[in-house]
């Protein structure tokens, strides 16, 4: 069977897009299939994201734009999967492309049709809270920016066809059915939110001021229905008291909702409460929840801030019912608090923290692709590889396999891509067609010959700005040798015209005055490059978004402004120069630091792609943290998995293992590292070159100082207990076993959740109950954080008779010893003060980062740590395994506490990210980057600290002494260095001082 160097990705949310980018960047052809009309999924609907309160649109839209124009990604919207055949390495998928009734090749996304459509119809993106027309894009920043006609609402009046100057409206445009041949498939259809049934206890759909969290998210959004103001739907008033209800449709055994925990609601609710208060200080949020499941990196700190800085009130209760005050439309909530009092309170608005359901078409997808779903209706995946479905060659990522948040989804997307890499690495580049371009025309030293193309954009610009006047004016400006106007400058025929004019007039600079460079610059750059001009000999003036659309009632002013913008662009264009992007060689080898499960999985993935890998382990054997773990909560046999891994590592010819190793130096940068390692009992020195680094150094178990640990033999750690249970099982005389959770977690020293201790405790408790049902087990906890499907084990433990008692963080249990008997004194919620005599006290010790080791490695690699000494990734949401320093990646416990499955995902994700580098013979640096003029630089070093990418270092120059130098491979071109440089020694290509000077002075 012949392998196919192409991948199909179903679902173009953030997960699908990330997987597509990873695979596209590593040389595979990607078919990205989306059922709706634009990409971005749920994340594009969010206002802000936790725990950083990043603006979702700001961070996601560059990624979407990149996906939309990636030359290896074939984006297909409005699609349906019809049939799948074949097997891993070679699948054929029959896809139906539903008609948009607008020709996407002609549509310029100008939006005139939507604005003229007489039929008011529902806009899905704003969750029914704002009205839009039947011809619409999903939202203003949509990728691709193509309009579609919603036939359900269209009355066929023909207005849109009449107003469309691009002649893109085609009412009779037919659906299309195509066969796509791919080697692997990634399913990333996301989730659907739980919608309460028609008759429900919360009055959703009946009471106007009861909204779901997704609806509330749109209310908060600046691009939402109320432009970011927090208003209640019934009367548009600002709600003062807002109640957020957790676990709506989750952790629900009544059959109405789902039994599992939806994992993300606790955090998104806290975020919504914080943002609501931030947007409107009058809003006083109250959150009703059973447990606060803030188990992720820096989540607990966010919850504390929500309470302390934003006055968010938490009440531990589940609301049983809601009534409406018919006059005021306020809502009356009734609940029982932890002191068992029934309380009634009035709220102005209620937000339902709805859970995550499997996507509605999950069964359909499963049938088509031949994969199994689990009992909850999500994709069933391998116990140790959470992206592997039940069918080889088909992977799942994101919420399709279990509810999860954005970084976990992005991690899994890369992990799925990493698994695809293993199958298709040999096929890279085979289906990619490189465009042949003419050689660049030599323009250096020649006087500028500028051509200006001014766009009418149908009537979008031409209807308000006097385009002929601007065109005449442009012709009068210095160095402008031609100026012309077009109906749509972005249309395919105008691209031909631009090329002709470049030739006819010997243009060496081109200006397009039309819309925004953020979406259209690459298109025009491509056009002038095809005509032989360097891509960077191009400028845009945004006379649509900045003139005609925002000064519609002042056409004269808009015209005057358009002229100014064109003049400023001309002034800049006179000073622009070609930019050559430098190319750097790549050493196609990897170094993985850390020989635990994470490091080994990463190394094996590299090796399976025939990439030589150096695995550096500081201990005398492989295995790391997993050496102390026997099973996962879900029943995975960790020891068997581990020994299998070690065996594979030791027998792999592509992997060099260094034990008892310490890293002496790491020099170099992306693609070109050189490292020396001292290893073995004799500290032999070895030096090797590599192109990437994966940091998988793990973390340690906390050694408690509290609760008499180390002083009394009957006080042990959960890991020690696990060992006893799984080896000799000598707990016969221990009739009462008390477990204390959060030992060394969520306190002042370690203000974070260690994520796995709840699962560990429940796992061991269940094992005890299985072996000795008569034993009494009491678990003292603050919150039980069995997120996702782990929730069912919590349920099982309760059913098996394990007693769970919640204590307040301010009153931790006290342990006393009298002779040989241990007693635990605890103030338990709902039960009161208890003195529990116990035979065995098991402490759920948290996970701590090795401070000194991490700091030392961080310095060597120039990567940062967070406050808790875990490694800090490049971006908490969208770059979870990357470092800001290019070519260096992080995975596993080194990043933050996490489960084995998550560590494995991260390991594969890190490999996928690394392969975007290692798959290339050379990498191209960014074009618009900074450079230092050594004759001006005085070497003060301020720029080094200003640079977020560690791209600058001081060197000794023979002529100029100590000067800064910028590594072109690492520079991203932000210019933070140049902004502070007193000597003006640093300039940024594409935004040089001279160019900006010309724009400032160009007004006159």
């Amino acid at each position, binding site marked *: 069977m012949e392998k196919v160097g192409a991948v199909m990705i179903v679902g173009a949310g953030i997960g699908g897009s990330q997987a597509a980018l990873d695979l596209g960047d590593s040389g595979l052809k990607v078919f990205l299939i989306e059922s709706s009309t634009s990409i971005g999924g749920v994340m594009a609907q969010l206002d802000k994201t936790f725990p950083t309160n990043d603006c979702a649109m700001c961070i996601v839209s560059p990624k979407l734009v990149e996906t939309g124009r990636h030359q290896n990604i074939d984006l297909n919207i409005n699609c349906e999967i019809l049939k799948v055949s074949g097997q891993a390495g070679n699948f054929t998928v029959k896809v139906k492309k539903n008609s948009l009734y607008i020709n996407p090749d002609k549509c310029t996304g100008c939006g005139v049709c939507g604005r003229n459509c007489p039929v008011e119809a529902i806009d899905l993106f704003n969750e029914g809270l704002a009205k839009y027309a039947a011809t619409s894009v999903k939202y203003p920043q949509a990728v691709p920016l193509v309009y579609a006609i919603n036939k359900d609402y269209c009355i066929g009046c023909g207005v849109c066809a009449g107003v469309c100057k691009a002649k893109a409206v085609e009412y009779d445009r037919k659906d299309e059915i195509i066969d796509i041949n791919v080697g692997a498939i990634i399913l990333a259809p996301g989730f659907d939110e739980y919608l309460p049934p028609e008759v429900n206890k919360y009055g959703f759909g009946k009471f106007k001021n009861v909204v779901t969290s997704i609806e509330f998210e749109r209310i908060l959004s600046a691009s939402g229905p109320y432009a970011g103001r927090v208003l209640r739907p019934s009367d548009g008033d600002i709600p003062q008291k807002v109640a957020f209800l957790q676990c709506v449709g989750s952790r629900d055994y009544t059959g109405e909702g789902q039994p599992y925990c939806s994992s993300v609601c606790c955090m998104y609710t806290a975020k919504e409460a914080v943002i609501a208060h931030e947007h409107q200080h009058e809003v006083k949020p109250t959150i009703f929840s059973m447990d606060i499941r803030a188990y992720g990196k820096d989540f607990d700190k966010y919850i504390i801030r929500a309470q302390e800085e934003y006055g968010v009130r938490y009440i531990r209760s589940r609301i049983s019912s809601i009534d409406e005050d018919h006059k005021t439309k306020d809502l009356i909530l009734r609940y029982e608090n932890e002191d068992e009092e029934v309380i009634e309170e009035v709220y102005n608005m209620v937000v339902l923290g709805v859970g995550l359901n499997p996507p509605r078409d999950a069964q359909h997808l499963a049938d088509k692709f031949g994969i199994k779903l689990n009992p909850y209706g999500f994709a069933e995946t391998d116990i140790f590889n959470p992206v592997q479905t039940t069918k080889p060659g088909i992977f799942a990522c994101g919420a399709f396999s279990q509810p999860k948040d954005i970084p976990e989804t992005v991690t899994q997307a890369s992990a799925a891509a990493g698994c695809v890499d293993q199958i298709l690495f040999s096929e890279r580049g085979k289906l990619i067609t490189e465009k042949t371009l003419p050689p660049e025309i030599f323009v250096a030293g020649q006087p500028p010959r500028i051509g200006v193309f001014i766009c009418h954009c149908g009537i979008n610009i031409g209807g308000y700005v006097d385009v002929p006047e601007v065109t005449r004016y442009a012709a009068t400006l210095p160095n402008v040798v031609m100026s012309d106007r077009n109906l749509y400058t972005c249309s395919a025929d105008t691209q031909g015209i631009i090329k002709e004019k470049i030739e006819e007039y010997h243009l060496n600079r081109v200006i397009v005055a039309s819309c925004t460079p953020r979406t259209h610059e690459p298109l025009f750059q491509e056009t002038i490059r095809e005509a032989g001009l360097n891509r960077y000999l191009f400028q845009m003036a945004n006379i649509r978004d900045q003139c005609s659309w925002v000064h519609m009632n002042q056409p004269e002013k808009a015209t005057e402004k358009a002229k100014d913008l064109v003049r400023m662009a001309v002034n800049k264009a006179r000073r622009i120069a070609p930019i050559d992007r430098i190319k750097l060689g790549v050493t196609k080898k990897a170094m993985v630091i850390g020989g635990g499960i994470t490091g080994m999985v990463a190394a094996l993935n590299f090796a399976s792609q025939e990439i030589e890998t150096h695995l550096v382990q500081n201990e005398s054997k492989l295995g790391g943290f997993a050496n102390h773990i026997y099973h996962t909560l879900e029943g995975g046999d960790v020891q068997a998995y581990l020994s299998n891994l070690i065996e594979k590592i030791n027998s792999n010819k592509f992997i060099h293992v260094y034990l008892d190793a310490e890293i002496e130096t790491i020099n170099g940068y992306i693609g070109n590292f050189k490292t020396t390692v001292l290893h073995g009992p004799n500290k032999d020195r070895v030096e090797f070159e590599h192109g990437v680094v994966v940091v998988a150094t793990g973390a340690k178990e906390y050694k408690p100082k509290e609760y008499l640990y180390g002083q009394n033999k009957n006080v042990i750690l959960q890991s020690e207990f696990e060992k006893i249970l799984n080896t000799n099982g000598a707990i016969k005389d221990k009739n009462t076993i008390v477990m204390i959770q959060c030992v060394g977690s969520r306190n002042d020293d370690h203000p974070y959740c260690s994520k796995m201790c709840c699962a560990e405790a429940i796992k061991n408790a269940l094992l005890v109950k299985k072996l000795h049902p008569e034993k009494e087990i009491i678990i003292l906890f603050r919150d039980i954080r069995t997120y996702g499907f782990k929730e069912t084990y919590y349920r099982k433990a309760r059913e098996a008779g394990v007693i769970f008692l919640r204590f307040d963080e301010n009153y931790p249990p006290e342990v006393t010893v009298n002779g040989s008997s241990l007693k635990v004194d605890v103030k338990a919620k709902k039960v009161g003060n208890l003195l529990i005599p116990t035979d065995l006290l098991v402490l759920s010790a948290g996970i701590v980062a090795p401070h000194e080791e991490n700091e030392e490695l961080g310095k060597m690699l120039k990567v940062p740590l967070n406050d808790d000494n875990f490694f800090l990734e490049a971006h908490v949401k969208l770059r979870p395994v990357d470092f800001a320093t290019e070519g260096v990646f992080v995975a596993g416990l080194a990043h933050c506490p996490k489960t084995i499955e998550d560590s494995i995902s991260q390991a594969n994700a890190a490999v996928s990210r690394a392969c975007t580098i290692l798959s290339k013979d050379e990498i191209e640096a960014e074009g618009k980057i900074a450079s230092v003029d050594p004759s001006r630089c005085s*070497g003060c070093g*301020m720029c080094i*600290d200003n640079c977020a990418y560690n791209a600058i270092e001081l060197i000794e120059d023979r002529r100029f002494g100590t000067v800064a130098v910028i590594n072109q491979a690492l520079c991203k071109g932000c210019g933070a260095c140049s902004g502070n440089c007193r*000597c*003006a020694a640093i300039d940024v290509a594409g935004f040089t*001082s001279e160019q900006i000077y*010309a724009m400032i002075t160009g007004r006159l």
Partner: protein
Amino acid sequence: MVMIVGLEEENKEIESNMRELARGLLKEKKVDVIIGYKKGTLPMMSQPIIIDKEEDVDKLLWNNTCYVNLAKYLVPRVAKFVDPEKGNLKVGVVAKGCVGRALIHLASENRINLDEITIIGIPCNGVINRQRIEMEIGEKEILEVTASGNNIVVKGKNFEKEFPFDEYMNELCKQCKIRSPPLVSKFPDLHVGACEEYASIVDEFDDIAEFEAKSPEEKWAYIQDALSVCTRCYACREACPMCYCNLCFVDQNKPIWFGKTTDMPDIIVYHLIRAMHMAGRCVACGACSLVCPMGIDLNFINRKLEKIVKQRFDFTSGLDPDTLPPMTDFKMEDAEEFMLEED
């Protein structure tokens, strides 16, 4: 603290301690050369001197006309202290508080290697406001300046005038909280003499609050008035230990950002941008003001700079080479009250 009866005795005490330390350093070969002050050719001036022999130690002097910030002599625009045979020389620097601060700050900007210098700390008692005294004396020629009691005595042909030092001290010295060079515990061999540890500097900046309270028009008028006499001789730049750019922004072309003329707008822009470049770097030595031939008091701009970085970023320059200066560093929670917000 020893009570010293008068300024003259105080200066003598400082001077003799300094000479002893210098002698010791040279004798024990702990330093190769020492930079200090010697008597100037003009009565109200002292001059820098570099000595490398024990017998020259008595040329070193301390009085209240030691304006120059000697740190300036260690930055690379002046030839480095290198011996063809010995390599980099070890340099002792006679350092009042602001000289010590300049050295430490310059180390944070990679200008100076602290391993190669020794700070000879002196507990500075302030320098005189030369321009003010000259202004009051007027056209008459000053022949001698001495200290007596707590006064500065200025003598000339047919006249003698006493100025109370407290009042006729340089403005920055009046506010000075760091009279001796700061200790840097990471470099135990860096200091001899009177050096002090400064935990955190308390300064209310009352002296500039009044100016800040003025209206923009009043401030503009004052600035115009104060700077109108500037001839752009750049003496301020030449005296400043922090001005060591290879090519100052005013001398750059491609593009010529700002005019090089002595038109008012160009003068103001020069001082405005120089101030911008000094933020978090100025060590309040006052050298710029004291060397200004036109007597422009640049100190009040320097005070403003100190205030900005202290109040915004809790930073005092030149206390610790490892604390990142404000323009080099940033914090998520930096104040941003100046940002435009919706009503």
